[in-house]
């Protein structure tokens, strides 16, 4: 059974991941993100090892993306459903020399996650277009 993938919607009403990829205009990066999300989506509760790694916030994990020149981290929260998960992609950060850019990326992801408690409309189903 497939997991449901959401993305957090920022103050301008744009999905944090869709907007980031649209601005990058980089098919290589888009492909690497798509493949990781396909793994997240397609494995139910039996997630492949290493796909998600923990962060300092208990309910925020990170998805590692290795672009050609840059490493990225997508902060994700997960909710257990009956036989699968719902994942929400909360925030995107760059990682350089083991440091996040922006530095407070984990906190901002946690803040977005808490925001969803008060306002569930701040997330949308993550849709990948066929352009």
């Amino acid at each position, binding site marked *: 059974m497939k997991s449901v993938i959401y993305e957090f919607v920022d103050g301008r009403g744009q999905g944090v991941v869709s907007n980031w990829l649209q601005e990058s205009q980089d098919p290589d990066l888009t492909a690497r993100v*798509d493949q990781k999300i396909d793994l997240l989506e397609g494995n139910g509760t039996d997630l492949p090892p290493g796909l998600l790694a923990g962060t300092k916030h208990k309910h925020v994990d990170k998805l590692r993306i290795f672009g050609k020149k840059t490493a990225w981290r997508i902060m994700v929260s997960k909710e257990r459903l009956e036989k699968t998960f719902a994942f929400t992609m909360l925030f995107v950060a760059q990682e350089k020399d083991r440091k996040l850019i922006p530095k407070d990326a984990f906190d901002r992801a946690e803040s977005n996650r808490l925001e969803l408690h008060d306002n569930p409309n701040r997330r949308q189903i993550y849709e990948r277009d066929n352009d």
Partner: protein
Amino acid sequence: MNETTTRLLTKFQNEDYRYAYDEEFSSARMAMQIQAIRESQEMTQKDLAELAEMRQSRISELENVNYSMWTVSTLRRIARSLGVRFSFRFESWSELLPEIENNNREHLVRPRFEKDETFTTETKVDKIPAKASGRVLTSPKFATEPVIHASPHTHTLPLLIGVESSTDATTVPQKFRDAQLWKKESDSEFRQIPNMRPTEAAIAA
């Protein structure tokens, strides 16, 4: 065709996209397959590490979907330790789509050689048929008793005996090729292993 395949049919039109997607997919699939095969054999990472003469932390690294620094020699060592074959070859893009669609544990597991039905299917017989009841091959000479040839690689393979169909010692090489392979079940019972002939190397082992 599922939603992912439908989407990729379009997205793969972009060359950079399809090569990057495949690079990520192939690495993740390899990591997942090592874990799936290992667990199907009820092996721990430590067990596999010992067989492959690696550290357990190295196996853990190879089973991580973010790992990408694969080498053929490492994969061959892992393959041998898992009793499977490592294959590398060029393929068309259309062959990738069903692999993506079926990228789950059930489709990734492969049997060890010893459990591979192609090599373990046997035809039960009560006794060695009369045609094959002449002298029994041994190597490099003939003997009057069945000679059991254990595999030189592992004791878990069937024990083999070669049965000569004629006593004419002048045509030994031909008879090596015509001999049947048998697995000895007990002192009086044998099972024929179909579609296999002993090679001279096997007989000489």
